[in-house]
């Protein structure tokens, strides 16, 4: 295999996942939280494809495409929720949406 071995790809994947997790925990806008979630999913995808290449087994890539489909579904529902919130004049701030708080 030309270029860096799988360990390097896994390092990038772990860092991407951490950056996404930081965004989810830190930012208050639900839109940015969704964008950060996409980064986390893509970090997972990179690890799946790296392992698929290392084992020489295509199933990892099939799994990555399934993750992509789930991400698309999640975006549809998430953006639908955000638009519904803005139509009901609810604040678009995850700290102030605390109706379900125990």
């Amino acid at each position, binding site marked *: 295999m030309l270029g860096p071995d*799988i360990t390097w790809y896994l390092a990038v994947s772990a860092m*991407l996942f951490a950056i996404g997790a930081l965004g989810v925990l830190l930012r208050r806008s639900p839109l*940015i939280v969704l964008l950060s979630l996409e980064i986390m999913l893509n970090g997972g995808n990179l690890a799946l494809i790296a392992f698929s290449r290392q084992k020489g087994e295509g199933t990892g890539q099939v799994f990555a495409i399934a993750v992509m489909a789930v991400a698309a579904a999640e975006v549809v529902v998430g953006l639908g929720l955000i638009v519904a919130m803005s*139509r*009901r*004049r609810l604040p678009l701030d995850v700290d102030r949406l605390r109706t379900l708080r125990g």
Partner: protein
Amino acid sequence: MGNVLVWIVWFVAAFACLASGIAVVSLRNPFFSALALIGNLGSLAVLFLLLSAEFVAAAQVLVYAGAVMVMFLFVIAYLGGEADAPFVGRYGWQTIAAIVATAAILVEIVVAIGTVADGRLSHAAKIESSFGSPAEIGRLFLTDNLLAFEVTSIVLLAAAVGGVILGHHSRRLGEEGADARA
């Protein structure tokens, strides 16, 4: 020579990937965050190509950077200035706790992979030229992973129905709100 070239491409793509990821998290304007995420997805597609996952790279650009991000940009444009929530929470401890938790996740991932890997990751398997091609992915989807394929279609259908119901419901509520204000 080819090896050096692949290393250079890898470094550029990995750097662009991490830098645009940090930009998504740190930019104040959601519109710029979404644009940075498109860059992130594009550089990830380059990494996928280096891992000889041609079909996944193409799907990444078409589905993610194309369809999903356009939807994001439409919603950001629809919301306008409303989307600009405060950057971080009101409490300082939230920021500190978020950074500590993220560092903990990173350390955990590195330790978990490091203990399991045990030096086995350095040599990759030999692959044929058909590895990662659309034909190969299609064959895997329709033979070994048929159930996953069908379940994915059900997930997408459920999401589509959910999106329609959410939009319909919020429109009705919005009209009621308009009546109440009138």
